């Protein structure tokens, strides 16, 4: 059993590297950074709350809330070089996207199923992030598939000799899939510049971690790959930032992959389609609410004289207003056009090969099926 301080940062794994203090040279967070972290968390919370409310009003059909995950998402993304490092997310990682610079409207466009450049909006499910400018890679809803894909992206960076680090996000449930094992194994065998960031919220829908895996922590799995495992309190954005920054810099300098496990609590059901009262008692649900990362961080900022109550409220008011505008903009955006249904199944060009390549014949998706459907 773990001691009471299990939520504190600790290093596990077979060859534990000393990570206490700032011996990896990861910069300490200045007050400005803390205020920025708070703003991103506040923005994330505001998007999440608004989305949940829109769902309850019947305006958007699906939300996988990230309430409770904000510190893990924002703190880790804050350690990345936006637009340079490669990012694989999963379906509730809006805090990662917002921290990297995605506009809230992009998230609402996807929730409203309105067509937009990013996130496969209108085709893909809400919050299935994709943005080439931010190097947020496309993902599906299929749990864990992005994990070995991230190994591929990291392998490419290594082959190309770039100083790009790849980070991949996933839940505790994802670690049961074979793809988790295969991705960890590849990364470790090839010592890839890759950070595995597991957000352990204790449940895969209704299934508690104890019915998913025989070990107490996800990081207990790191030793099977001779990989460093770092267990952190995912409700503390500073701790998340420091651990991620260290892992990222290690990866950037040839030190290979790290598995970070950020323990968080789910402050809402799994998704807007889930009713957690079926598997959690009122007491259990109430206990979860005590781990709201916003509350803790607010207290810390006040206590450290970084921001006072009024300053925090001011930020919250600003992000809320920003979010209201974004949601309204998405709500009034035009619906998808049915005539686009067949577009973009295949490319018509041979990228980078336009000169030497032969013309591909008959690549029009129209010829691949219902040619007359729209004609």
């Amino acid at each position, binding site marked *: 059993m773990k001691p009471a301080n299990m939520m504190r940062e600790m290093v596990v794994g077979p060859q534990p590297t000393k990570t206490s203090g700032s011996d990896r040279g990861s910069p300490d967070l200045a007050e400005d950074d803390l205020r920025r972290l708070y703003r991103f968390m506040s923005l994330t919370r505001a998007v999440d709350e608004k989305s949940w409310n829109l769902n309850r009003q019947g305006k958007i059909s699906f939300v996988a809330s990230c309430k409770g995950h904000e510190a893990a998402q924002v703190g880790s993304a804050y350690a990345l070089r936006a637009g340079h490092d490669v990012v694989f997310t999963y379906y509730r990682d809006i805090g990662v996207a917002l921290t990297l610079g995605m506009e809230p409207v992009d998230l609402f466009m996807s929730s409203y199923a309105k067509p937009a450049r990013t996130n496969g909006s209108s*085709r*893909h499910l809400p919050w299935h992030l994709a943005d080439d400018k931010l190097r947020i890679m496309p993902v599906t809803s299929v749990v864990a598939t992005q994990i070995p894909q991230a190994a591929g992206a990291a392998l490419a960076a290594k082959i190309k000799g770039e100083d790009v680090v790849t980070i991949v996000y996933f839940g505790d449930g994802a670690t049961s899939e074979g793809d988790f094992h295969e991705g960890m194994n590849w990364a470790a065998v090839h010592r890839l510049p890759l950070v595995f960031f597991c957000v352990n919220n204790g449940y895969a*829908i*209704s299934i508690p971690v104890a019915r998913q895996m025989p070990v107490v922590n996800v990081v207990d799995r790191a030793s099977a790959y001779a990989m460093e495992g770092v267990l952190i309190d995912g409700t503390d954005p500073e701790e998340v930032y420091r651990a991620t920054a260290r892992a990222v810099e290690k990866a950037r300098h040839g030190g290979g992959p790290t598995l970070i496990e950020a323990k968080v609590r789910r402050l809402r059901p799994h998704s807007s389609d889930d009713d957690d009262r079926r598997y959690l008692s009122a007491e259990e649900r109430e206990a979860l609410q005590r781990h709201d990362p916003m509350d803790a961080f607010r207290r810390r900022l006040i206590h450290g004289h970084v921001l006072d109550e009024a300053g925090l409220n001011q930020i919250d008011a600003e992000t809320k207003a920003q979010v209201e505008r974004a949601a309204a903009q998405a709500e009034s955006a035009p619906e998808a056009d049915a005539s686009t249904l*067949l577009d973009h*199944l295949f490319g018509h060009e041979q990228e980078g090969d336009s000169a030497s390549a032969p013309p591909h014949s008959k690549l029009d998706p129209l010829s691949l*099926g219902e040619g007359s459907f729209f004609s």
Partner: protein
Amino acid sequence: MSTFIEAIREGLYQEMERDERVIVLGEDVGEGGVFRATEGFVDRFGRERVIDSPLAESSILAVSIGAALNGLRPVAEIQFADYIHPAMNQIINEAAKIRYLTQGMYHCPITVRAPFGGGVHGGPFHSQCVEALFLHVPGLKIATPSTAEDAKGLLLSAIRDPDPVLFFEHKYLYRRQKADVLPDEPVPFGVAAVRRQGRDLSIVTYGAMVHRALEAAELADKEGVSVEVLDLRTLCPLDRQAILDSVKKTSKAIVLHEDNKTGGVGAEISALLAEEAFEHLDGPVVRIAGPDVHFSFSHVLEEAYLPSTERILDEVRKLAAY
């Protein structure tokens, strides 16, 4: 009145009562499953027979296979058919081949339940049709009930079947299809149902599209075109005789499904007709199907994807006039 999903639940419950070798396993089945098919099962049958699996579909199938080889009758739930793909190796290379490769020494009585199909605003990963991916594989049976009665009756057959059965439940029907009385006995596999008699042309279909075909047939009737609607119920065994009989009678055929057109189940049925009913055909065998793209989340795109009653009616008119 029981809904389609209640019929599933009742069938499963009845079989677990009847045969203690039956177990269910899958993600979240313990708390009832995301569609409530196993609601209350843990209380009645205990966690030994109602098993919350880790989030790992390949092992859900593999554990089912191993348990079947050791005497149980596992019913695996794949939460959405869209997530059956990680288990395809265990289904196609393992379950489907056990009896044949061991010449009958071993067999693999497993049932794999999976909600499939669109029309519920589920987007690309809660809408997929996967039946055609398995139709091609020798050794697998496939059921696709379209009514609440069949949902229960075919499920009883599936669970009692000595071979692997993929049981695809169209989730659009879960709460929309209802039955006054559910059957107590299994509905046999391989027997298609004529859902509506007709003279002028036959629509061969299955799953949710049965109901759109019936709507279109109703409208066509008002225009003086008599349409027969054949519900396949199981895709393997496929009731080839019923298909041939219907088309021999009407001389014209439309094959209808929601799944992508190319290489879909409709291709097999068209090919069957082109090969074995050629002399009886008075017109081309028309396929109405989803286009060869993926499901989309936007309701505009989803509607554009799904074969509509109007589109069916349109093709009925054209073929009738041929």
